[in-house]
């Protein structure tokens, strides 16, 4: 999941979510970076509207459905 947080962090900071960015954030966290995963992440995010995807999490605040 650290890769995803790196992507979200970059996105929120207004930076491009590219291989260099993700790698350097992960390195700064002391993570041994797996290049293939970075590539896969960036490729998979291509065309994904991140804001839209995470806005769906807004419901998370309400645990109601979970209890259902």
């Amino acid at each position: 999941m650290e890769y995803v947080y790196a992507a979200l962090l970059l996105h929120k900071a207004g930076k491009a979510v590219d291989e260099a960015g993700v790698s350097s954030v992960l390195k700064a966290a002391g993570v041994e970076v797996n290049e293939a995963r970075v590539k896969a992440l960036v490729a998979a995010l291509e065309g994904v509207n991140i804001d839209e995807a995470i806005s769906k999490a807004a419901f998370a605040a309400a645990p109601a459905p979970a209890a259902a």
Partner: protein
Amino acid sequence: MNAEAEVHHSEHIPQWKKDEIKKIVDGVHSHKVVGIVDVRGVPADSLQKMRRNLLGKVEMRMVRNTLSTIAFDSLPEGEKAKELAKYVDGQMLIVYTNDNPFKLYKLLNATKSKRAAKGGDIAPSDIVIPKGPTSFKPGPLVGEFQQVGIPAGIEGGKVVIKDTKTVVKQGEKISAKLAEALTRLEIMPIDVGLNLMAAVEGHMLYKPEDLGMDEDLLRDMFAQAAAHAFNLSIEAGITTKDTIEPLIQKAVMESKALAVNAPIFEKDVMDLIMSKAEMEMLAVAKMVAGKENALDDELKAKVQ
């Protein structure tokens, strides 16, 4: 023939009785099932109605108990219906049918209804007075209720039952006073109808407890059995027309679950992965939302 023998030994029995006895024996031999039914407490007109309703399915014959006993006793050794003599008691009649005993039981059970209790009736099951309000205005009724053990009182200008109470246990006699109180409370505890005591089919004698199969329970069992087959199919990956779609769906769900939870960065699940991360972040943010300066305003607004 045995009946004849019996009759032969009982020279004093008049012809009409001999005929009655022979009719019973013939009835036993000409039907698949013969049974003894208790009709205690069933008014004659109701009985006539029941007899008409069962016409064509069940033949009902009212016979003197002594003659019934003689007839059953006269059956040859080894004939199961001979045992029915033991069940001849009280107000009874003999039933014949060519259906099976279960059907007979069901048909007879369908005739049952409830009536108010009379003094001296035996409680067919525990009689319970439920807690709650009644429509009665305060009066001597409260005392009458209390006298027979019903915890009555007055609340809000009405008679109420203060506690749920069992006033008679199954098999106990209902007193005249209690019967009166039960009637006032519109509790109808007594079963009226055709009570099958025993039935014989071929070499088997069935008692009511053998015959009462709970249909709801059976439905549940079928549902359970079908669920078992389905679950087993899915668990073992048994591919049939019935299971292939659920199996595909299971595989797809497992794949998505793995991709989201690992996580594996696949286009199909990226939005799920991102929203999962966001939810995790919000959950953690929520934990620290109350702490001074820990969150920026935008985030604070989201989690509060």
